[in-house]
């Protein structure tokens, strides 16, 4: 009996050893992450060279300002004021004093260096985890000096992806229709800019009305509707070369263009004799395919991003039904 009880006793004892307290953390805060963007350090010789080429006093600070602005506009980061930084950029890039950075409540730190190498801009940057006291990422790249803004965007993309898990969107551009002039004589131009509003550029002169520009998801092509010679047609524009062309050889009005998710096709509406149907055109072999054939107005087709299907607005002439 005693033995049995002893065995039982030892059986029960290990319960104590296994009783590790577990606490489930299912909530957190959604406050912007405090991040310190130290100006990229630059040596005097490189600084002078860049000043000559780019007319910018300190290209290192300019790039870090782009990064800082990007992070701030994302809403997920809170770039700290540079006035509070205790460490100089050149030393911070070698080995940051994490105590100094955690003192100003920074959780992440970006440091870097800019060099002038063979007429080119060489940028290296490091992302540091201030609380863990370790380097999270280090990347260097070389480009032409005029690309310095893009360098800032690419740095932001990398930092953003590393800290949030989501791919960055900073190295992107926005195409839009710029309007100017009085109401009675409004001019609409196709324009493009960086996602932060810089590098604004007009793509058309404003002689004709332009509408619904759409980016190709895979390359630098844009499709849009232009009323060239008062005939609304879908056009294709290559931003890099400036080449423009009419999409398909339709004997009437084409409108509402969009690219397919793989960027290989354009889907649009073609109207003839009061009836509009949906057509696609393959950009590689220019083959036009009729998709719908209803006696109703089929317009605004759009591909689903996942499947090879699309949605469209279908208007019955008699009943005005929308699908």
């Amino acid at each position: 009996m005693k033995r049995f009880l002893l065995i039982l006793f030892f059986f029960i004892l290990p319960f104590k050893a296994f009783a590790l307290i577990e606490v489930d953390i299912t909530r957190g805060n959604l406050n912007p992450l405090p991040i310190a963007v130290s100006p990229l350090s630059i040596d005097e010789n490189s600084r002078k060279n860049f000043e000559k080429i780019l007319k910018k006093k300190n290209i290192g600070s300019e790039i870090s300002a782009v990064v800082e602005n990007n992070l701030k506009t994302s809403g997920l980061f809170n770039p700290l004021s540079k006035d509070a930084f205790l460490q100089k950029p050149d030393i911070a890039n070698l080995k940051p004093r994490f105590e100094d950075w955690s003192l100003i409540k920074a959780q992440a730190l970006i440091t870097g260096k800019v060099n002038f190498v063979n007429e080119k801009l060489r940028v290296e940057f490091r992302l540091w985890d201030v609380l863990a006291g370790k380097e999270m990422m280090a990347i260097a790249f070389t480009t032409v000096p005029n690309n310095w803004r893009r360098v800032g965007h690419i740095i932001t993309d990398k930092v953003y992806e590393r800290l949030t898990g989501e791919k960055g969107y900073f190295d992107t551009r926005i195409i839009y229709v710029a309007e100017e002039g009085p109401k009675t004589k409004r001019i609409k131009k196709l324009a493009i800019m960086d996602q932060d509003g810089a590098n604004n550029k007009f793509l058309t002169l404003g002689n004709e009305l332009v509408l619904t520009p759409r980016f190709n998801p895979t390359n630098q092509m844009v499709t849009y509707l232009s009323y060239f010679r008062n005939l609304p047609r879908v056009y294709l524009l290559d931003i890099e070369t400036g080449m423009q062309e009419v999409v398909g050889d339709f004997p009437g009005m084409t409108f509402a263009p969009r690219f397919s998710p793989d960027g290989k096709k354009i889907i649009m509406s073609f109207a003839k004799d009061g009836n509009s149907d949906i057509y696609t055109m393959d950009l590689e072999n220019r083959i036009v395919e009729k998709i719908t054939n209803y006696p109703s107005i089929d317009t605004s087709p759009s591909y689903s991003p996942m499947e090879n299907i699309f949605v469209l607005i279908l208007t019955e002439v008699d009943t005005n039904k929308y699908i």
Partner: protein
Amino acid sequence: MSLPFLAKKPIDLPPIVSVELIQITEKTNIPFAPKAKKIIEKAKEKEKLVSEQAPPKKVKKIKPDSVPMPEDKVKKIEKIKEDKQNPEKIDNEVKQVSEFEKKELFDPNNIAALIDKSKEESAEAINKTDKVTQDQQKNFENAGLSLSEEDALKAQIFGCWSIPLGLPYNENLLVRIKLQLKPDGTVIKSEILDHARMNKPGQGFYKVLAESALRAVKLCQPLRVPTTGYERWKDLQLNFDAREMLEG
């Protein structure tokens, strides 16, 4: 017509009820439920232990009651004989004899004696088991943090943890961190339990989440731990689960 309607209604209703139940459990802190279950289960085990030893106790009690019957008769006979000589004094002696010596004289007494011994043993045993269960109770009480203690710790870490918002909410992203703490709540050692997963290709999201959890722990130092019972919380496991936040 009425029957199909009746048949349909019950099919529609149960899911609604179950959804409500889930919401309630979420609001009332799911993590506590499994612990409560564990404690209940352990408590049941304790009861089982006691109940297993309890039945022999009863059997042994019945036997001594039944056996002394012949004994009493013998005692009475002796008492009658001796009463004639020294009624008062011998009474005490008789009682003593009846308790110890007389049991040896007769077979039934031997049995009774054996039973008595076993009774003593069982009593000891019961005492022992009682002690064990008391210790256990202490252990179980000490095993978990109280609700207020846990809530204080949770609230503190909630404030420190910046959830990376780019994470997909449908993946199994649970980061478990084991901590070794000092009595004042500072972290001596923090270890991610699925550390190997961090550097696997395609597990970028897990890495991001794990790093954010580690940052939260470091930022929160010293942790708001109870002032007493260092032994029970010196090792602590934190399970970081962002699904609830990311889905909502």
